[in-house]
C-alpha cells in the first residue's frame, strides 16, 4: 500500500509543479541578488541572505529560510489535506477500502507519502539552491584563495566572512574546498556544513510533519480537500499571530510555529541546541496527537462519500 501511495504521489503532475515552483522562488531571489549585488543588511530580511554574496555555498540555508514561512507549509498543507479528503471527493476512497485496504494501513501509507513529499521538496530546494549558489553567486571567497593549511576547517580562528580557513581539499575544487563561515563567525568545514544542512533539513521536515498531521486530521473530518488544507494553514497563521503577541507569552512555548526557525541554530558555532530540541519536541507532540486523533476519527467513521 505504501508503494501504491508513493506511485500515486510521484505520478501526479501537481507534485512536480509544486516542487518546481518552490524551487523557483529562491532561484529568482538569487538572480536578483546576482544582478544587483544588493542583500538585506545582517539581521534583516530572510535569514542568511545577508551572507550569501560572500559565500554561495550558504545559499541552501538561505533558500530554506525563504520557502519556510509560506511556500513549504502551503504545499504540505495542500498535499496532506488532500490525502484522505481528495480520495473521498474523487470517490476512490470507498474503492480502496473495499479492496480491502485497512483504514489504519491507508492512514499510515498516506503519512509516509506526505513525509516523502516533504523530503522531496526540501531536498529539491536544497540541491537546486546549492547549484544556484555555487554557479550564480559564486563559491566562498576563501575557496577562491584556495589555501588549505593542515588541521581542517574548524581549527582556525574565525573572523569576517571570506577570511575563513579553507577546508581539507588542497586542490581547492570549487565546491569542495571552501570554508563557510557560521553565523557566529567561526568557519565551518564542508563536512560540518553538510552535517548542519542535513540537520536543518531534518528539523524542517519534522516541523512540516506537524503541519501535515494537522492537515491529515482535518482531512479525515471533512470531504473537502480545500477545507482541510485551509484549516491547517489557518492554524499556522493563528500560531504566528500569537507568537508575536506579548500578551500570549504563556502559551507561546506550545505553539506549532514557535520554534520553526530554530534550525538556524544549526549554523552557529557551536550548535545552539536548546531551541532545536524544544522545537523538535513540540513537533513530535503535535504529530502524535493529531495522528492519533486522525486515526480515532477515521477508523470509526462512516464512509458516505
Amino acid at each position, binding site marked *: *500500500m505504501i*508503494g*501504491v501511495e508513493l*506511485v*500515486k504521489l510521484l*505520478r*501526479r*503532475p501537481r507534485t512536480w509543479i509544486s516542487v518546481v515552483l518552490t524551487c523557483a522562488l529562491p532561484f529568482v531571489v538569487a538572480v536578483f541578488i546576482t544582478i544587483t549585488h544588493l542583500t538585506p543588511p545582517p539581521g534583516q530580511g530572510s535569514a542568511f541572505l545577508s551572507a550569501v554574496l560572500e559565500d554561495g555555498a550558504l545559499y541552501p540555508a538561505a533558500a530554506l529560510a525563504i520557502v519556510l514561512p509560506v511556500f513549504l507549509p502551503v504545499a504540505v498543507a495542500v498535499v496532506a489535506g488532500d490525502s484522505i479528503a481528495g480520495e473521498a471527493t*474523487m*470517490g*476512490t476512497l*470507498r*474503492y*480502496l*477500502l*473495499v*479492496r*480491502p*485496504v*485497512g483504514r489504519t494501513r491507508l492512514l499510515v501509507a498516506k503519512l509516509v507519502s506526505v513525509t516523502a513529499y516533504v523530503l522531496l521538496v526540501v531536498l529539491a530546494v536544497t540541491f537546486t539552491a546549492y547549484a544556484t549558489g555555487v554557479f550564480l553567486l559564486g563559491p566562498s571567497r576563501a575557496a577562491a584563495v584556495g589555501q588549505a593549511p593542515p588541521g581542517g576547517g574548524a581549527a582556525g580562528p574565525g573572523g569576517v566572512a571570506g577570511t575563513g580557513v579553507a577546508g581539507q581539499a588542497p586542490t581547492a575544487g570549487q565546491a569542495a574546498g571552501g570554508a563557510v563561515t557560521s553565523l557566529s563567525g567561526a568557519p565551518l568545514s564542508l563536512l560540518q556544513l553538510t552535517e548542519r544542512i542535513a540537520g536543518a533539513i531534518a528539523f524542517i521536515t519534522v516541523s512540516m510533519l506537524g503541519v501535515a498531521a494537522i492537515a491529515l486530521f482535518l482531512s479525515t473530518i471533512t470531504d473537502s480537500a480545500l477545507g482541510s488544507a485551509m484549516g491547517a494553514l489557518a492554524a499556522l497563521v493563528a500560531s504566528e499571530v500569537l507568537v508575536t503577541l506579548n500578551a500570549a507569552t504563556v502559551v507561546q512555548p506550545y505553539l506549532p510555529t514557535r520554534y520553526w526557525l530554530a534550525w538556524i541554530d544549526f549554523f552557529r558555532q557551536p550548535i545552539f541546541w536548546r531551541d532545536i530540541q524544544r522545537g523538535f519536541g513540540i513537533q513530535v507532540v503535535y504529530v502524535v496527537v493529531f495522528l492519533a486523533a486522525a486515526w480515532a476519527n477515521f477508523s*470509526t467513521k*462512516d*464512509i*458516505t462519500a
Partner: protein
Amino acid sequence: MISTSALTKRYGAVTAVQSVDLDVREGDRYGLLGPNGSGKTTLVRMLLGLVYATSGQIEVMGQRIPRNVREVLPQIGALIEEPAAYPHLSGRANLALLDAAGPGGRTARRTRGKRIDEALEQVGLAGVGRRPVKAYSLGMRQRLGLAAALMRRPRLLILDEPGNGLDPRGIRDLRALIIGLNEAGVTVFLSSHLLAEVEQLCTRVGVLDAGRLVLQDDLAVLRAPTGRIVVDTPDADQVAAMLDGQVEHRDGQQLLVRYPDAAALNARLVGAGLRVSAIGPHQRTLEEIVLSVTGTGSDHIGGPA
C-alpha cells in the same frame, strides 16, 4: 451468501435503514429495488463495511461484517454508486494501482496483468485501457468500474446502480455479462431503481421503502399466475355478456376474467363464434407488485411521513 438481521442505521434523527432482514442465497441474482432515498446505498455500504450499523447484524459468506471484512472483501467485487478513478492515469494503470493496494502479495502481483486484461476484455474496454481516464465517456467509466469489480475474480458481486451512464447497448452488454458470470457461479447482488432492468435480470427481488424491506421473494413466485385470464378480443361486449360475473375488469378490448384455465376459456369463446386476438394467464408486472407495497419515495417532499 448475505444475511442481515434487524439491520438498522440511524443518522441522528433520520433512520436510513430500519430493521432489514436481507436474505441472499448462493447463486442468486438478487435485485434490490427502491425509490431514490429509500436506503439502498446505505444498506450496500453497510454490507461492505464502509458504514457501521447502529444495530443489527450482518453476515456475508458466513463471516461477520464489519469484524471480518479482511477475510470477506477479497472475494467480493463491488461497484458503489458512481465508479471512481484517478483521471490523469490510464484505465489500466488505475486497475493496477487498485489491485496492488489490496492484499494478495506475490501471487496477486504475478497474475495482475492477466487478470486486468481479462477484466477489460469482459467489459469491452480492451482497446482503450491505456488512454487516460479523463478522456473516457461516462459509459466507459462505468465499464472501468465494473472491470475493477471483476479483476479479483470475485465469488460475490455487489453492484449499486450498475446500469448508470450506460446506453441501451451498454445495458444489454451488462445484462449478458452478469448472467454469464452468474451462470459461472458468481452470486450477484445489485441495487437499482429501474424496475425493468431488475425484472429482466434478476431471479430474486427485495423492495426497500423508506428504509424498510417491504418485500423479498423469488421473482418466479411474485410473478406466478394470479388465477385470472387476460383476453384480448374485438368482440369484448359479447364476451363480457357471456362471462357475466366472471369479468373483473374491462379496459377497451381487454378483459380480465376469473377462470381456471386459459385454453378451456379460449375453446369456449371460439366455440361460441367469438373472435380472440390474444389470451393467456394473468401475471402482475413487477411494477404493479412494487407500487402495491411502497408508499411515496422519500425524496418526495410533503408526502405522508
